[in-house]
């Protein structure tokens, strides 16, 4: 009998642990079937595949980051982006996530939020929220994310929108 109690307690603990990134999952789930949103999710298995497939084509620094990633979720909409940006800010402004930086660039609000367990330069989750007049973009990177490497990424690529998603829609 004691074993059953112990096992169920352990399961319960495991269950509550698995619900750690619930806030973000819930948010994505909320708009999953919403036509106004474009949503993309890449899971850990796919990142492993990527690492095996595209070793040569990709820049080393980018590849290093991709190898350490466990998941990527993208959510975008052009329907009332301001409102969705504010909603997301309110939703993730919790103890779970801490604000890394906020940038106001012309009409665009950019906020970086991170979730890290060891308080170092490596974060477990990086959440990027971009809210402008035309578009709301939410990016969630999960894995080992080296903050010092992110700045260098821009040297290799200049991307100011996620155009590839539009191709996916077709």
């Amino acid at each position, binding site marked *: *009998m004691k074993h*059953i*109690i112990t096992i169920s307690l352990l399961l319960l603990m495991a*269950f509550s642990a698995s619900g750690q990134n619930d806030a973000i999952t819930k948010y994505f789930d909320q708009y999953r079937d919403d036509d106004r949103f474009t949503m993309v999710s890449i899971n850990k298995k796919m990142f492993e595949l990527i690492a095996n497939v595209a070793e040569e084509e990709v820049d080393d620094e980018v590849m290093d980051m991709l190898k350490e990633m466990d998941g990527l979720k993208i959510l975008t909409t052009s329907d009332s982006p301001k409102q969705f940006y504010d909603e997301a800010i309110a939703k993730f402004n919790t103890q779970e996530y801490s604000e890394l930086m906020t940038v106001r660039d012309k009409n665009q609000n950019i906020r*970086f939020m991170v979730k890290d367990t060891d308080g170092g330069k490596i974060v477990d989750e990086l959440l990027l929220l971009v809210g402008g007049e035309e578009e709301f973009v939410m990016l969630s990177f999960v894995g080992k994310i080296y903050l010092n490497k992110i700045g260098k990424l*821009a040297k290799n690529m200049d991307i100011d929108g996620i155009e*590839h998603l539009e191709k996916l829609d077709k």
Partner: protein
Amino acid sequence: MRPTIDQLIQKYWDGESTLAEEKQLKDYFNSGAVDDAHMSLAPMFRYYRSESEITTDFVPDLSFTQESKPKVRYLIPKIMGIAASLLLLLTVTYQQLDMDDTSYNNKYTEVENPDEALAIAIEALGFLGTKYKKGTTPMSKGLKNLEKTDVFNFTKN
């Protein structure tokens, strides 16, 4: 003997007599050698004696007090077991449901093609880097350069 009995009776009425003294009184009144002066009290003490001598074969059935205890003790672990099993079942079911939900997600939002995933991931990282740069460049180059960040032209490798 009379003054002693008188004293005992007085103590008895005052409620100060000991059990031994009361037994002495009862023995005296039941002995048959009761002084005339005390005769009026004799029936009372005789009544007490005769009442106390009544016995019965009746034995109350207290078996229920002995049986119920082990019953309760036996039930508690059983109930705990049932509760734990239910909890276990619920947890597993709930987690199963959760997994089902995720696989449902996969159907609609997961990218299945590695090339496509790679393109999206690179784009996402690039987007992230660009936005990150917007936040960090003004800090390193001074606020007067704030507007410059938009003019920077990073070329693709």
